[in-house]
């Protein structure tokens, strides 16, 4: 499935805004991304498997707050980084 990558993380994806990944949960999608783009998972999820504050992961148009969320092959994942702070 397709995963939308925010501009802040495109150094990892060789400037690609959308990349393919596979998995049945958000956790598996992130693990697959990390295999292909080493280091990207730790930018999104901390060492306690918590989605980093101010980051948002959407499955289609629904925000997920857990890595256990189930994903269908037809779903689309979007990752956003907040544009907050000075």
């Amino acid at each position, binding site marked *: 499935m397709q995963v939308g990558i925010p501009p*802040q993380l495109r150094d990892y994806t060789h400037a690609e805004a959308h990349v393919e990944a596979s998995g049945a949960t958000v956790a598996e999608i992130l693990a697959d991304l990390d295999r292909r783009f080493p*280091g990207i998972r730790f930018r999104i999820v*901390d*060492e*306690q498997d918590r989605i980093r504050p101010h980051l948002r992961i959407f499955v289609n148009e629904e925000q997920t707050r857990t890595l256990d969320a189930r994903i269908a092959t037809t779903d689309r994942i979007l990752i956003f980084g907040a544009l907050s702070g000075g």
Partner: protein
Amino acid sequence: MTSISRRPSRRAAFLPRASLPQAVPATGSLALLVGTRKGAFILHSNAKRREWRLAGPHFLGSTVHHIVLDPHDRRTMLCAARAGHFGPTVFRSVDMGRTWKEAAKPPAFPKAKEGEKGLAVDHLFWLTPGHPSEPGVWYAGTSPQGLFRSADGGVNWEGVAGFNAHPLRAAWCGDEQASPPDGATLHSINIDPRDPKHLYIGMSCGGTFESPDGGSNWAPLNKGSIADFLPNPNPEYGQDVHCMRMHPLAPDRLYQQNHCGFYRMDRAEGEWVRVGMKMPKRIGDIGFPLALHPREPDTLWVFPMDGSTVWPRVSPDGKPAAYMTRNAGTTWQRQASGLPERQGWFTVKRQAMCTDRHAPVGVYFGTTGGEIWGSLNEGGKWTCLVRHLPEIYSLEAAELG
């Protein structure tokens, strides 16, 4: 409490200078490595230190708390960065910043057991290259307080379990209510030049701690250092250390600037002495950084700030000045020549003051207003080297020649 078997050293206070490269003045080119809230910069100079050329930014938009060159190989440079909300990491360069590569395994606490709340590194605050007998070793201090070690030049990092998993760690470090506004930090990692296993750290908050065995065991080292923000102002631990340094030629001599003044400790005495009490009363002895003379263990610089009322943390009365002692804090000399004489509201963070190894010693500091000031005559006269940078978090001298 874990016991420490090592007694305060009774060895000679001063090391034989001929055997130590840092005892010889540097004569080559120099760079100042600048960490800022919005990225890193490198300020290059030649051996005469008369011309300065700014390079960068590196990692524009990321907060860079510390950028350090390994003084032993003069090649490996590590940068502690935090890209906005995307967490902390370490970048590594072996070509003075022309190219960078991210650590394969950045510092991170272990995953907690199910049902327990584990720690997560918010930012990497401090980097220290290891002992010269251990090439490739680096230590990192984090917020919240954690100690990490790399044995491969910063590529892979492991937690120092003797500290991070110590049963008293939570008591030593305190909770969020005991933390400074930008987060509690472990910093001031000092390695004894006589013994790579003998480590000191400072914490804000937590105090000063010592390990005799490479980080397996730790003990507080805070006698004499006060904490006037606690019910007991003389606690065993809990002090707010801003910056602590061990002199490389006299490793039983420690200095610290903390929330409650400037202190000196000679290990044989085992007690901090508040040498800041010798400062002028109208200036006080509150501040963040301190910088050591590389060859004279009794000489150091501090940069006092207003610690009255609500802690403005700016130069007292808007008149910035460094203060230098040449007798380990017995007397202090004001050094303000070249600095603004009024309306100069400088704030200098704890990592933002350093010295080089040239002769005479260059002294440098960076401000939260984005200026770097330098003195090529040991503080006798200051010149602004760079303006208009982002808020400066750290400044380190890197001898290249």
